[in-house]
């Protein structure tokens, strides 16, 4: 454990910042602004969901009942736990336990893969049942107006979320690499915090997607 500024990796403080603290503040604020744009990106889909749910309450209830609730719940548990492991990774990084931090990050990435795997199983089921969006919809069990719209929104929302899971996984892999290089410590851990923030946002979105799509 180094306790002096010289112990920090090279080039961490930009020439235009007066101090590391200032730079950290800037980075955290920048990340939150980016997360705000992510929230508003999903806002479009949540609003679309609300509008069509208002117009087709029966179809949405029926469609929701034919989703794989077990898989959805399992995925919720997986993502929540992965959020927890990322939080632990940051905790370990800032208390200078590098290996523990790396292990937590690795577990998180595995959880992300598990999430995608379960999602893939679900998608395969939908393909077999022809529970597909828009003009491809031919799911025999739910043939009421608006059912295709439910599946359109289901695929759009989970699809966009899935892309974010993949993006988050890539970010976490990169941070895992930087952790193994020993970049993060009690002196400097902003990078790993930002990666964690992104992953938590992915979790936040799913916390809302789960009840909206699977439960009601």
């Amino acid at each position, binding site marked *: 454990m180094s306790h002096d500024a010289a112990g920090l990796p090279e080039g961490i403080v930009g020439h235009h910042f007066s101090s590391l603290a200032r730079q950290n503040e800037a980075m955290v604020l920048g990340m939150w602004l980016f997360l705000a744009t992510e929230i508003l990106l999903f806002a479009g889909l949540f609003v679309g969901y*609300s509008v069509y749910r208002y117009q087709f309450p029966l179809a949405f209830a029926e469609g929701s009942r034919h989703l794989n609730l077990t898989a959805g719940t399992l995925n919720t548990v997986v993502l929540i736990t992965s*959020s927890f492991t990322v939080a632990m990774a940051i905790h370990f990084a800032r208390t200078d336990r590098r290996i523990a931090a790396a292990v937590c990050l690795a577990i998180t990435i595995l959880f992300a893969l598990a999430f995608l795997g379960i999602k893939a199983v679900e998608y395969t089921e939908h393909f077999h049942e022809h529970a597909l969006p828009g003009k491809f919809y031919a799911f025999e069990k739910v043939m009421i107006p608006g059912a295709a719209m439910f599946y359109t929104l289901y695929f759009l929302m989970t699809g966009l979320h899935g892309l974010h899971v993949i993006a988050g996984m890539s970010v976490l892999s990169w941070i895992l690499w930087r952790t193994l290089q020993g970049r993060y410590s009690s002196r400097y851990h902003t990078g790993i915090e930002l990666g964690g923030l992104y992953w938590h946002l992915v979790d936040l979105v799913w916390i809302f997607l789960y009840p909206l799509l699977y*439960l009601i």
Partner: protein
Amino acid sequence: MSESGPSGQASAVLHPGDEQEKPEHSAIPYVVVWIALLFFTVLTYLTGKQHLGQWALPIAMAIACTKSALVALIFMHLKDSSGMPRLVFVTALAFLGLLMFFTVGDVATRFRPATPAGAPFGTERSQPEGLLEHETPE
């Protein structure tokens, strides 16, 4: 914003010249939140299976909001952060609410014939099943 005192800053950022000994960072809140999140997941699963009718949505949303508040405050460190990240987060949610409010408000108060075909109150003939049948991929 005003409550962003030096104590709030210190846990999020570190000054290189800062020689002060920091209190040991604790992992207990994370474990507690994780267990709480799992509990709420079970709760929302169980209430969701009851099909509570008009109460289903408010209950599920209340649970989801509680869960996300826990994630945002503890996991995402909003509890210890300075005012700006909180303001940014709340503002983003407020504007999501704004978009939702007026758009759903429009659909809910609209002159009904202006609502698209296939809506539950439309006539049988305007519903899209016929279209769907002859356009199935098989």
